[in-house]
C-alpha cells in the first residue's frame, strides 16, 4: 500500500473534532467518494475523534490517501496516550459506554468503514485506524 498524500492534525478539543470532519470531507471529495460514502467516512471520523478527546485526553490524527493496486482509499489513524481500553471486545459492543455517551462510537464507526483496526493497552493509549475504499 502506498501513501500518496499525508497530513497530521492534533485533536485536543471539540473545535478540532469539527476541523477533522471538514478535512475528512474535503479529502473524501477529492478522492471522488460518493456523497453517501463521504458522509459515512466523516461520521466515523467524528465518532473516533470524539473518543480521542473524551476518553484519550486528546491526541493526533494522520489523514492519508492510500493506494493498493488500483484501489484508492482514505485512511485515518487516531492515536492518543490516554488510559487505554482494557476490554476492546466489550468497548466495540453497541450500547457499552463508560462515559455519558450512547456507546455507539466504536462499534458504529466500525460499521461505517471498510477496514477497522484498534490497538489499545491499559496505561499506554489507543490507536484506531479506519479506512474506506473508493
Amino acid at each position, binding site marked *: 500500500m502506498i501513501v500518496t498524500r499525508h497530513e497530521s492534525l492534533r485533536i485536543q478539543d*471539540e*473545535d478540532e*473534532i*469539527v476541523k477533522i*470532519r*471538514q478535512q475528512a*470531507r474535503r479529502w473524501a471529495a477529492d478522492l471522488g467518494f460518493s*456523497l*453517501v460514502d*463521504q*458522509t*459515512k467516512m*466523516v*461520521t466515523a471520523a*467524528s*465518532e473516533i475523534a*470524539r473518543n480521542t478527546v473524551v476518553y484519550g485526553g486528546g491526541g493526533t490524527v494522520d489523514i492519508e490517501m492510500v493506494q493498493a493496486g488500483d484501489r484508492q482509499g482514505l485512511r485515518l489513524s487516531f492515536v492518543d496516550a490516554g488510559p487505554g481500553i482494557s476490554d476492546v471486545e466489550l468497548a466495540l459492543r*453497541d450500547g457499552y459506554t463508560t462515559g455519558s*455517551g*450512547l456507546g*455507539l*462510537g466504536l*462499534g*458504529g*464507526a466500525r*460499521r*461505517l468503514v471498510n477496514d477497522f483496526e484498534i490497538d489499545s493497552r491499559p496505561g499506554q493509549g489507543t490507536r484506531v485506524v479506519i479506512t474506506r475504499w473508493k
Partner: protein
Amino acid sequence: MERIPILRMGEFLLVTIQVDMHDRLAMRLQDDLTEKIAETGARGVMIDISSLEIVDSFIGRVLANIASMSRVLDAQTVVVGMQPAVAITLVELGLELPGVLTALNVDKGMEVLRGTLAKAVEEQGGDRHPT
C-alpha cells in the same frame, strides 16, 4: 457567545441549524430550547437540519434529548429536512432517534405539529365534556 437562533412562530419554535455544530454549541441549543419552551409555552418545536452534513451519535443524542425534554414541557418536536446520505449513515451507525418525529421538509413538519396540536385540543375538549 456563539448561539443558534430560535424563532417563534405563534405556538411553535423554529430552529434552523446552519453550521457544523461543535458539541458545546449542540448542548447550548438543547438548554436554550428547553428554556424557551418554558418561557413561551410553545406547543411545538421544529428543527430544520437540511444543512447538516452529518449527524453523529452525539448530535443524535442531543436531538433525542430535545424531544424528551420538550415532551415533558408539553411540546412536540419534529426534525425536518434530513439529507438522504445522513439518513443512510444514521441507520448503519445504529442510531435510533427514540421519540423524535421526523418530516421530509418544513411544510410537512408544520402539518405534523398542527396535527398533534389539533389532536391534543380535541382530547382536552373530550375531557371537559364527557359523553
